[in-house]
């Protein structure tokens, strides 16, 4: 048994140590895998704010992941083809600068989350799950037929975008950026959880009627959580696109939304480190099992079933011996 804070330090140290080791023994692909884990963890940290704290089972979070991805793709595409982006009568230059792309990805995802949340939060329970899924499908089909940006083929960005003072083409440096953003998001998550907002949101998840009778609006609390959540997942989407130097409609697919939930549940719902542990394990399993058998999904399915049936708190729950929040 281990307390949550040392666990957090341990996990993050391990996630940092693996690529450093890989750098030392010249295994650059391991660095790529670690970067993938860090980015998926970031996306899941975002979802965990809606899911773990707000109790919002969103089966459409791929929307924000995809929006982040396309924000990167579209801006970089216009920069690489030297064509301005015409929108609302404005003519905007593309950019290959990561900070700008991140800002745009975060803002646009937040805006989309606000719109989707506003409509979806009129419902609850299964209906919420399904309406978020429906929004996901809308974006998916839209992206497939959006021929200006490659439709189903997606968009290739030939050179990774730049960050001042960092050579993003070097795997370990790009990893460092992603890792830093993950840590920042975790820090933000921890602050949110302890802040009055987190307190009220936690209560809104458990007893919305109580929150109303103290004069707070639970739906508005959840909406704000959904927006913050969408923004973080969107940021992760932009990084993911940069990792692959490629975006495609699969970033909007409902399977991806499902996988994000899977990550969190494996790690532990509503636990700070749940998404990180889940993402690391998922990437490892995918890489390792996928190498052993092409039927690896069967094993993933079985592992998932066992966790749902017998380890409700996920891995963090097992490690800390404490049950997590119920969603």
């Amino acid at each position, binding site marked *: 048994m281990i307390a949550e804070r040392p666990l957090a330090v341990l996990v993050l140290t391990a996630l940092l140590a693996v690529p450093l080791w890989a750098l030392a023994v010249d295994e650059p692909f391991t660095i790529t895998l670690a970067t993938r884990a860090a980015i998926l963890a970031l996306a899941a940290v975002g979802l965990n704010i809606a899911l773990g704290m707000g109790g919002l089972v969103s089966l459409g979070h791929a929307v924000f992941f995809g929006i982040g991805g396309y924000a990167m793709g579209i801006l970089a595409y216009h920069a690489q083809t030297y064509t301005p982006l015409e929108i609302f009568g404005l003519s905007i230059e593309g950019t290959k600068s990561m900070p700008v792309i991140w800002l745009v990805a975060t803002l646009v995802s937040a805006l989309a989350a606000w719109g989707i949340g506003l409509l979806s939060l009129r419902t609850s329970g299964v209906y919420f799950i399904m309406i978020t899924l429906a929004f996901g499908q809308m974006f998916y089909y839209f992206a497939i037929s959006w021929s200006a940006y490659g439709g189903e083929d997606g968009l290739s960005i030939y050179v990774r975008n730049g960050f001042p003072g960092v050579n993003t083409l070097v795997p370990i440096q790009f990893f460092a950026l992603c890792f830093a953003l993950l840590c920042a998001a975790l820090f933000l998550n921890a*602050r949110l959880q302890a802040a*009055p907002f987190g307190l009220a949101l936690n209560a809104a998840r458990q007893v919305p009627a*109580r929150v109303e009778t103290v*004069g*707070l609006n639970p739906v508005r609390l959840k909406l704000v959580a959904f927006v913050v959540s969408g923004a973080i997942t969107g940021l992760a989407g932009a990084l993911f696109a940069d990792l692959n130097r490629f975006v495609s409609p699969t970033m909007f697919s409902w399977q991806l939304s499902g996988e994000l939930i899977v990550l969190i549940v494996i790690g532990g719902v509503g636990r700070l480190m749940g998404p990180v542990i889940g993402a690391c394990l998922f990437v490892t399993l995918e890489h390792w099992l996928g190498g052993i058998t092409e039927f690896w999904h069967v094993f993933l399915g079985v592992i998932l079933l066992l966790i749902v049936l017998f380890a409700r708190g996920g891995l963090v729950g097992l490690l800390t011996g404490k049950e997590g929040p119920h969603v």
Partner: protein
Amino acid sequence: MSDPILATHSLSRSFGALKATDNVSIDLRAGEIHAIIGPNGAGKSTLIQQISGVLAPDQGRIELLGEDITRLSTVTRARAGLGRTFQISALAMEDTVFENAMLGALGARGNPWSFWRAAKRDTALSETALAALEQVGLAEARDMRTADLSHGQRRQLEVAVALTLAPRAFLMDEPMAGLGASGSKQMTGFLDGLRAEAPILLVEHDMDAVFALADRISVLVYGQIIATGTVDDIRKDAAVRAAYLGEDL
């Protein structure tokens, strides 16, 4: 006589053919405990839900401090000064006692949009929460998980959360429910003192408590108020006796 703090005027609500509340007019004045009693299915829950804003009435008005609140949401009614407790404890079971009280304090402040500083470090919030816990005698248990509280303690916490709001009127749905004899007695003593802070509209099954506490009693049968009066009036009322025939009045 002072103006009522809380009043309903001809409140009605039907479910199909069933009139759950039928032309109910009651009021709650400063400093009093006004108890609503009635047999099961008399429409007490429907009445509470309408006053607290969960159900909209078909007809009639609800006033708080002279303002019409009939069309306001639960949230706005709470802000306007209506403090409600639930029959079945509605508490964040995974959170600590203190956190539940903090939620009330946060509601009293009316602004949960604080994202950075830890709630615990917010002294104004903590003080409000602690004061309420002390008032109900739960200060010792502040760090316990709510799920681990005894039933009686949960009832106390339920009241404490309402207290943090410093409401202008309390709306209490069976605060004695499930309490043993001693717990009931303790709660009675506590509510007795509370009426000085704000008047209480008390829906309660425990007749001993009602008769010990109430300044006035209204009897609700088949959705209608059949009698309103002091404890003695009600004891004597023939209609009430008829309605409760077979029950131990």
